[in-house]
């Protein structure tokens, strides 16, 4: 993992915005629905890095780490790209983290590893 040391204040990239339209959890998955090389080349380097890394489905936290961007900035950038349909934010398949079907699947999957 590359460690990036910021030469400018991180939220400069978001124009000072810290809020997002939708709630993005650290483990929320995002991916690029269709990759557009021309669009990618028009992006700022940091945003482009995120866009490229999201070609493979990843969580917000993973994108933050691989791009060396703080979690807050990553959320705003993801949210902006999602607003223009450049990124797809995976909707939860379950009503809540306490959905019984989800818990059963987790339990059974973990048992296989135990």
């Amino acid at each position, binding site marked *: 993992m590359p*460690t990036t040391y910021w030469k400018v204040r991180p939220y400069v990239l978001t124009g000072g915005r810290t809020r997002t339209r939708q709630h993005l*959890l*650290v483990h929320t998955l995002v991916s690029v629905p269709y990759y557009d090389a021309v669009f990618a080349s028009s992006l700022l380097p940091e945003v482009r890095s995120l866009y490229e890394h999201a070609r*493979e489905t990843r*969580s917000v936290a993973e994108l933050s*780490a691989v791009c060396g961007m703080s979690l807050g900035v990553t959320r705003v950038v993801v949210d902006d790209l999602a607003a223009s349909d450049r990124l797809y934010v995976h909707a939860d398949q379950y009503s809540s983290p*306490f959905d019984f079907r989800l*818990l059963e699947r987790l339990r059974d999957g973990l048992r296989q*590893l135990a």
Partner: protein
Amino acid sequence: MDSASSPDSVKLTSAKIVIAGGFGVGKTTCVQSISEIPPINTEAWMTAASEPVDRLDPGIDKTTTTVAMDFGRLTIAPDLVLYLFGTPGQPRFWPVWDDLCRGAVGALVLADTRHLEASFPAVNYFEQDSDVPFVVCVNLFDGVLTHDLDDVREALALSPDVPLTTCDARDPSSVAQALVTVVEHTMKRAAGSTAGALATR
């Protein structure tokens, strides 16, 4: 490597378990031992920046500590991934704990019986400040349980409905077993409470 445009990846969903506990109790080891990706953390940030702040007891061989993020990933099924998030050990990162715990299935609070007090704040957090169901797990550092679990329960003043278990954080199957305990505890809690009360958090 899955292509982002394939129909399968669109249905991919994620869940999260938080690995909490005091400083130096083995959270990073725990995440590392079971993660299928190289565990991602921002430890590098800390080595230089925290030296004057995070003093370690002599005898604990640990030169870095974790800030902000420390996580691993486990594929449960082709359409389901489980993320493990280790919490930052230092109390000054409470807002990060809230962020990490939001939407979590449950939490595993690791404890080291040689430094039980290191995990007091984590236990307090889950008892008082969070609705995320949690399990306390004694990390067997040398593979041996040095204290009776009943004594540990008493020392932590754990309520009887909080499960107390053990694991060896270096051993993937042992960690998986501890995570099963977390999921089962959440199932019990979810079954026992009105679904709506838990689902709101």
